[in-house]
């Protein structure tokens, strides 16, 4: 009997949800219920009353890193079939190697560009 392995993995996902959900519910059932105190519902700030909102504006640097990451993530994904084809070895390896090397070289240009424009510096 042949079963799609991704179907089994979907079941594993259900297992994980049951596992964590069960643990949380068990803790809810058995857990201590102390007195209601306003302090218990405060955000932790080393016992001082939190000031202002935690959701501050973050540096643009994070966004730049996410951008660079995305380019290289897509690159890695595109390399994957090429790498697989090369590993299979049923196509002209020389040409394929040249192909991958050119592709990687173009992306090295992208890395060098980001490097030169100081995108990779953390200010």
């Amino acid at each position, binding site marked *: *009997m*042949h*079963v*799609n*392995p*991704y179907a*089994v*993995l979907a079941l*594993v*996902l259900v*297992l*994980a*949800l049951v*596992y*964590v959900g069960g*643990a*949380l519910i068990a*803790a*809810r059932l*058995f*857990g*201590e*219920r*102390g007195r209601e105190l306003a302090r218990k*519902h*405060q*955000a*932790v*700030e080393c016992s001082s009353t*939190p000031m202002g*909102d*935690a*959701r*501050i504006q*973050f540096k643009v*640097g*994070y966004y730049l*890193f*996410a951008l*660079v990451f995305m380019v290289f*993530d897509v690159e*890695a994904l595109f*390399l*994957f079939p090429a*790498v*697989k084809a*090369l*590993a*299979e*070895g*049923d196509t002209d*390896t020389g040409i394929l*190697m040249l192909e991958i*090397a050119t592709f990687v070289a173009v*992306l*090295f240009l992208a*890395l060098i560009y*980001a490097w030169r424009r100081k995108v*990779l510096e*953390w200010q």
Partner: protein
Amino acid sequence: MSEPAVPSALEPASATETVAAPTSAIADWIRDLCGDQEWLAWVVITLIGLGALAALASVSAMVLVWMERKVSAHMQLRLGPMRTGWHGALQPMADGLKLLFKEGLLPRTTDLFSYLLAPFIPMATALLALAVIPFSETWQLADPELGIIYVAALSGMSVFAILIGSWGSNNKYSLLGGMRAAAQALSYEISLLLVLMTAVLMSGETAMQAIVQSQEGYFWNWWLIRAPGVGFIAFIAFIISATAELNRAPFDFAESESELTGGFHTEYAGMAFAMFFLAEYVHLLVAACLGAVLFLGGYLPPVPALAFIPGPVWLLVKAFGLVFLFMWFRWTFPRLRIDQLLNLEWKFLMPVALLNLLAAGALRGWGWL
């Protein structure tokens, strides 16, 4: 199940093949019991597999927590937990019980949906990744054809646990830790992907089982040694990026205790915290198993003469060796600064991994592998 790929035209490949344990003794016994009811046998075997997966995750996480505490203690000339059971072996169990009876706090400032969703994510990604690790030829819950890149996709998803959890808790420490951790995990994901692709190139396979099979024989067939230089560099790059992806010291920005109290899980108490904590150690086990599968022959013994020791033992021995390495790092290297961390990845590790991938391609292309 693992017949060599036929190099013909586009044949329907192994996407719908293979599921748990075709030949193990227990599976055969269940099949006999069920007779003609093939689907019933499948359901029973899968349920047992899922139960085994959950048990493995829980037990190994407890063992790893204990091991972390003992290793840390002995590296600092302390004894660590000694009172609960033999050398404190029952300590994680006691901790778990304590966390079960703790009061679950729910701060009013949280965003309830994201706050409650976050503890589910790390455990889900950890179990999903553990499910594709082969413990022997037959002990593997699922063997998707794209096992390698599937694991990479999961490690990308686990970042969201930190991000969503920290945003949901609406706490300054959490948010700072979460954003830092996300930037770090994003960066090291690239080199991890490149290393995984180097492994694909070396072995010519993308499924976990097939990668292990490609290292059959003596230990010099393991990819760490067999691919001259390339395998070793890939292994080092894997260890570094795995340490960063796991948010372990020296890359533990997500919860650098001295700066951010608890980091992204500051706001979680009781069982919700326990889930983050447990998942962290399951992730550690997954990373170590992955390293063993890709570079150290997985469940294969170093010498064929030692094959009488079953496969799962070999895999766990190798994986726990790597776990020890991860714990050793923690007490050897001081925590980096975030700019050093990002420089290490973008200006060193990523170019090295990319060149290493090309070198592996050259080796494979000229038939030296």
